[in-house]
């Protein structure tokens, strides 16, 4: 059911769910640990800071919020506000974080610190209260989750950047634990951020980025270009490799295996090796993608050249056909005409009839060649698009058809028509062909044609309604095909090209053409054309 234009998009979904699950599970586990007095879950290592009950609650809520946002389709329709669950849970996160920040800043005790469980750990200034950095992290995370669908007029999403300090904060505190640097996870004299709190902030920040696939980071990660490939391969390594190498170096140094200079050399060499390998691997992939693109480009260029050649050939063919096919036909017709006029007395009725038929055949073929050429030339003779008032076009078409309009005593009426955008000659031909059809396929009643139009957005739909013989539904599509005729030549004249020309003209203008009709009930031919914007109303 899901439309996934990017092949890596489902990874984002997976990571989002994983982060959400981690938040929920860890939050609930820690809460249970508080109620069940399980110290290892509260602080992971003896002597480390505990994750406070409110922190656990906020993590569980953040996990629910991210999970609901991923599930609720914020992922695919990022303009949509997150679901009620997602927003409710995000509000919990923001309130817990915000209230605690308020407590620190205003120096008040709102009585929320030990609401869920009593902190009976080592004496602290504020028992049960999370670290200031943790509180700030939740306030920002909650705000980011609540406002992630907000966009500026230019489509940017400024609130997504709220997550950056959260991620940096968690990352720094994690490093503090890894390297045993207390100042990175503790702002004296207040309590410390727990080690699993720090890690969860990093995990949830990553999860947050996965909720909205059109944020800058996620878009880069799931894209298909060379830049995305680079980001996918390098970003995780850049984030995690140096701290790990640094930790190994520090551990070795502290264990007394080597001194500072050797440690630094080890650190530098390891990073160089890791990144050189990574860059080599990535560069090769980018190079391959580049080569593929160059090949595709060449193929495109040659296809384009072939197309231009064939277009040129079509033009040449059209010209040759217009002259070389018509010239002999003209001779045939001319001599037959001479036979008919000069030798009328020597010929009997039968012979004169045959001559007349031959002349009609030649004449028909000339019309056919002419119509076929005008069809073939449609693409080649495209003029630049200009605003075309349909009123003018209709008047001109009527003027060209005034003889058949007068002969059939047809009444042509029209609503005020809009200005469309296109090739004027072709639009005139379109309207004239449809009008001519309405006159040709008339029924027993006095023919009447009405033209109306409707503008929807950037598009005008024009309808030409007649009271003619109508068309059965099964023919509604095929009548637009080249040479497709529903009636014998003797019943209704025509070459079967007119509607094919109409369809080609409309298609060239990015529109559609169709017919609404039933036998005996007249036909309405409708087509769409781009509306002109500079309508002087």
């Amino acid at each position, binding site marked *: 059911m899901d439309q996934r234009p990017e092949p890596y998009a489902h990874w984002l979904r997976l990571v989002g769910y994983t982060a959400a699950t981690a938040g929920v599970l860890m939050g609930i586990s820690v809460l249970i640990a508080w109620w069940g007095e399980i110290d290892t879950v509260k602080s992971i290592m003896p002597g480390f800071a505990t994750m406070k009950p409110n922190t656990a609650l906020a993590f569980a809520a953040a996990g629910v919020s991210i999970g609901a946002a991923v599930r609720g389709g914020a992922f695919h329709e990022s303009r949509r506000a997150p679901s009620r669950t997602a927003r409710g849970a995000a509000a919990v996160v923001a309130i817990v974080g915000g209230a605690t920040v308020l407590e620190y800043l205003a120096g008040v005790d709102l009585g929320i610190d030990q609401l869920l469980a009593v902190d009976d750990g080592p004496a602290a200034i504020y028992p049960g209260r999370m670290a200031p950095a943790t509180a700030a992290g939740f306030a920002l995370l909650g705000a980011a989750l609540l406002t992630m669908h907000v966009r500026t007029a230019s489509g940017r999403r400024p609130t997504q950047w709220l997550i950056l300090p959260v991620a940096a904060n968690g990352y720094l505190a994690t490093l503090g634990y890894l390297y045993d640097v207390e100042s990175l996870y503790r702002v004296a004299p207040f309590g410390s951020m727990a080690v699993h709190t720090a890690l969860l902030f990093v995990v949830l920040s990553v999860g947050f980025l996965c909720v909205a696939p059109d944020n800058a980071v996620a878009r880069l990660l799931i894209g298909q270009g060379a830049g995305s490939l680079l980001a996918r391969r390098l970003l995780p390594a850049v984030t995690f490799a140096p701290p790990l190498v640094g930790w190994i170096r520090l551990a070795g140094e502290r264990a007394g295996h080597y001194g500072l200079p050797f440690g630094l050399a080890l650190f530098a060499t390891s990073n160089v090796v890791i990144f050189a390998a990574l860059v080599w691997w990535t560069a090769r992939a980018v190079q391959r993608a580049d080569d593929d693109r160059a090949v595709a480009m060449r193929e495109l260029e040659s296809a384009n050249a072939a197309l231009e050649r064939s277009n040129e050939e079509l033009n040449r063919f059209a*010209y040759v056909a217009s002259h070389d096919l018509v010239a002999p036909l*003209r001779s045939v017709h001319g001599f037959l005409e*001479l036979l008919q006029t000069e030798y009328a007395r020597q010929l009997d009725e039968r012979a004169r009839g045959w001559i007349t038929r031959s002349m009609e055949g030649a004449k028909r073929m000339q019309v056919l060649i002419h119509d076929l050429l005008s069809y073939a030339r449609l693409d080649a003779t495209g003029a630049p698009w200009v605003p075309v008032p349909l009123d003018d076009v209709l008047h001109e078409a009527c003027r060209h058809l005034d003889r058949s309009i007068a002969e059939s005593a047809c009444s042509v009426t029209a609503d005020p028509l809009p200005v469309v955008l296109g090739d004027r000659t072709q639009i005139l031909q379109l309207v004239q062909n449809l009008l001519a059809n309405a006159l040709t396929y008339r029924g027993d009643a006095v023919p009447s044609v009405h033209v109306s139009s409707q503008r929807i957005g950037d598009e005008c739909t024009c309808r030409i309604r007649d009271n003619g013989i109508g068309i059965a539904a099964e023919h509604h599509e095929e009548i637009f095909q080249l040479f497709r005729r529903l009636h014998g030549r003797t019943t209704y004249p025509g070459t079967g090209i007119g509607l094919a020309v109409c369809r080609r003209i409309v298609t060239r203008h990015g529109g559609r053409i169709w017919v609404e009709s039933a036998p005996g009930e007249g036909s309405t031919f409708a087509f769409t054309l781009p509306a002109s914007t500079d309508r002087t109303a």
Partner: protein
Amino acid sequence: MTTLASIGRPLNVLLVEDDADDVELTRLAVARATSRVSLHVVGDAESCLAFLRRAAEDAAAPPTDLVLLDLNLPGHGGLHVLGAITSDPALCQLPVVILTTSSAAHEILAAYRLRCSSYVTKPFDFERFVAVIDRVLDYWTTIAALPSLHEETPTASRGNAR
């Protein structure tokens, strides 16, 4: 003003046309025209230019009053012939009427850019073709002032111009 009609000489027309059927039809149409016409026919570009240059050099030869030029000629096309006539100082005063089946916009423009006198598309029906030919010939016989009636005798220097 002196026109052919006023001096009673037939209009000397050079028809440049390669297709025998077209030549025949044009002959028949010219015969039905009201103007008195003496028609000479050549079938390709080279013989057309050769004929015109010979006539230009030979004072005794009857002057050509009008060229009816088909565009679709073998070898060099009709436009080439038109260009050769209009760029030749000895021939450039000749009225050249394009008479062709083509109504392609680029050919019409090209012909006028080479300064043809007019561009006429042959109608499909013979009856209408006769009418068109009649009016064209009548115009050059009774209305237009022909350069061939106002020429000084050709000098040796002009004869050697090309």
